[in-house]
């Protein structure tokens, strides 16, 4: 915002312009009150007026009582809207699904089923809100392999088997492939171009309401050596800030897929000793996340009809509104589904 746009007495605006130090309102907060007086030659009361006007213009929204949020009277802010995963067992673990206003990370070993779950979410988002969707499409950014088109087509064919809660006529009326936008970004530069140009356009037009980055780790592990970690941290923070900004601006869930690394030093106080692996990219990345989920591959096999699947477990590592809990799951033709305990006991070896 320009300083001239502030509602101030003309002599204050003139004094600020004469000082030639500030081009935008946000810079006013970069200096102390005494420095402001020195640069502009204004009295303390005038400077207070200036900062008050600048503050009022920078503020997006005055403080809101949480009760109004609860009643849904403040659209956008902490709306409590969730994107369901499509399976009642997993949605119960997540208390509804992915939160709409933050970055969710899904990490796990290769073959755990992360891409499967991400593809499933791209379909779930297209359902109307009463069935846990957001009535919009998804943008899927691949950084490693090419997009698994065949698997997506298989998931679409098998949707009625997964979503037994939705009337079949509704499922067949949705044209899923039309609303999934696929982007490829092989390095950080092309990813930042994608996130700064194409993705905001899709979001602004309401064409998508889910952003998937598969995967984040691939970009950072390949490009940086061990001693470039300062530069790597900067890029990581910049990426996290961009994703958070997109999520806030357009009230959209952002899902980042991450790889895992082995844990050698178990006295690492970053997290409780849970498994042999921990998510990649370290503390700097972890600090920027709202929800951290992990998909583990367990010993054991589950059978369902003519299908067999290795047993998995979806764990909540941390989230502000979720218990540190997990549910067993399996990957079927129709997608990722949680396994109830009774099912598991009868079909597990």
């Amino acid at each position: 915002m320009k300083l001239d746009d502030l509602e101030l007495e003309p002599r204050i605006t003139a004094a600020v312009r004469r000082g030639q130090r500030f081009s935008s309102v946000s810079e006013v907060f970069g200096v102390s009150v005494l420095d402001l007086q020195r640069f502009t030659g204004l009295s303390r009361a005038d400077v207070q007026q200036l900062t008050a006007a600048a503050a009022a213009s920078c503020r997006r929204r005055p403080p809101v009582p949480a009760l109004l949020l609860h009643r849904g009277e403040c659209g956008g802010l902490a709306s409590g809207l969730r994107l369901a995963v499509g399976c009642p067992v997993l949605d119960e673990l997540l208390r509804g699904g992915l939160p709409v206003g933050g970055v969710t990370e899904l990490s796990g070993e290769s073959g755990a089923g992360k891409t499967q779950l991400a593809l499933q979410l791209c379909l779930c988002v297209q359902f109307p809100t009463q069935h846990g969707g957001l009535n919009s499409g998804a943008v899927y950014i691949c950084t490693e392999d090419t997009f698994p088109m065949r698997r997506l087509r298989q998931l679409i064919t098998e949707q009625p088997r997964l979503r037994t809660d939705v009337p079949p006529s509704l499922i067949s009326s949705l044209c899923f492939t039309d609303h999934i936008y696929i982007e490829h970004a092989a390095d950080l530069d092309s990813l930042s171009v994608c996130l700064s140009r194409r993705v905001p356009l899709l979001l602004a037009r309401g064409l998508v309401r889910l952003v998937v980055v598969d995967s984040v780790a691939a970009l950072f592990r390949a490009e940086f050596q061990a001693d470039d970690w300062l530069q790597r941290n900067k890029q990581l923070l910049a990426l996290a800030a961009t994703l958070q900004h997109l999520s806030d601006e357009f009230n959209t869930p952002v899902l980042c897929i991450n790889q895992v690394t082995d844990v050698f030093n178990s006295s690492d106080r970053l997290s409780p000793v849970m498994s042999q692996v921990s998510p990649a990219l370290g503390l700097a990345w972890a600090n920027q996340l709202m929800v951290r989920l992990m998909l583990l591959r367990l010993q054991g096999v589950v059978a369902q009809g003519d299908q067999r699947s290795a047993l998995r477990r979806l764990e909540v590592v941390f989230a502000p509104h979720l218990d540190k809990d997990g549910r067993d799951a399996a990957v079927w033709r129709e997608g990722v589904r949680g396994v109830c305990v009774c099912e598991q006991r009868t079909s597990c070896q």
Partner: protein
Amino acid sequence: MLGYVSWRHVVVVVKMQRAVSSFPLSSGVKLKLLSAGFRFAGDLQHVTPPKLSHEAGLSQQEALEALQVVTGGGAAASLTAMELLQMEAELRNIVTFSSKLDSALGGGVPVGKTTEICGTPGIGKTQLCLQLSVDVQVPPCFGGVGGHVIFVDTEGSFVLQRVIDIAAAAVRHCSLLAEDDEQRGAMTTFTVETILSNIFLVRCHDYVELLAELHLLPDFLSDHPRTRLLVIDSVARPFRGFDDLSQRTRLLQGLAQQLVALATRHDLAVVITNQMTTRVRGSQSQLVPALGESWGHASTIRLLLQWSGSQRLATVVKSPRHMDATVQYQISSDGFRDADQSDERQAGV
């Protein structure tokens, strides 16, 4: 030999000798005052505004302002240590609902001081902030403070579902404790709905919005005099990834001073959360609170939350009144609580 001279007399004499040019007035006004012969604060002692405006050639408004600044309109009267001791005795604390942590803190989080909570992601910083936002509202007849809270969220981790869980648990807890009529009467105003209506949420997306919000906070506090808690979750997020570290240090110092001023002038407990970062020294790396060394001096009390195996520990690392102490806690579905006794026995604590 000098007779006994009280400190107050000495302070007054020193104040009179202060040069007019050292006061925060605009340069034009200072020039006029000096050329009219008013060089020291003592010269302006018994001058009325109309006389000053006539003699120095100032407008009535400018003369009034100058006199207010120079004759100590802003400076508070000095206090003796005895008076301070009496004031300290009246200080209240906000309970955390974990009795061990409350005793380590000397009753709870103190009103009128700044408390910092540091920890890695998922350890429970936001949970403790949400718990305090509910606990500050506990009615005085139950030993609480009965105040309101303004919650500044910079991460988007204020999830209403969780606040409702914690509020409902606190209401249940107090209902069980209610013994006499006064307490039962107070329970009619301590319900989940009233708790939500007394939590004011502000979402800040970057440091400019955060600083703007803090500038506007005194106005909010004069409209809501019952506010007793200010939470900033987290203060680290908007300041990570700053390119100009010296500017960041300056901004943080200004921020720290503002927070202390808010805490003392408006009788608030200021609670801020901070992230952790790794500091590399040679070949050793160590987890330290973020935002640099100088930020360590910002708050009066520092609480460090960390993992030890699968247990959560809270350590009071900095407190003017108590020794360092470490206690174990847990995050249950009801909120922030003492760890289960059975867990403690198992762990051999």
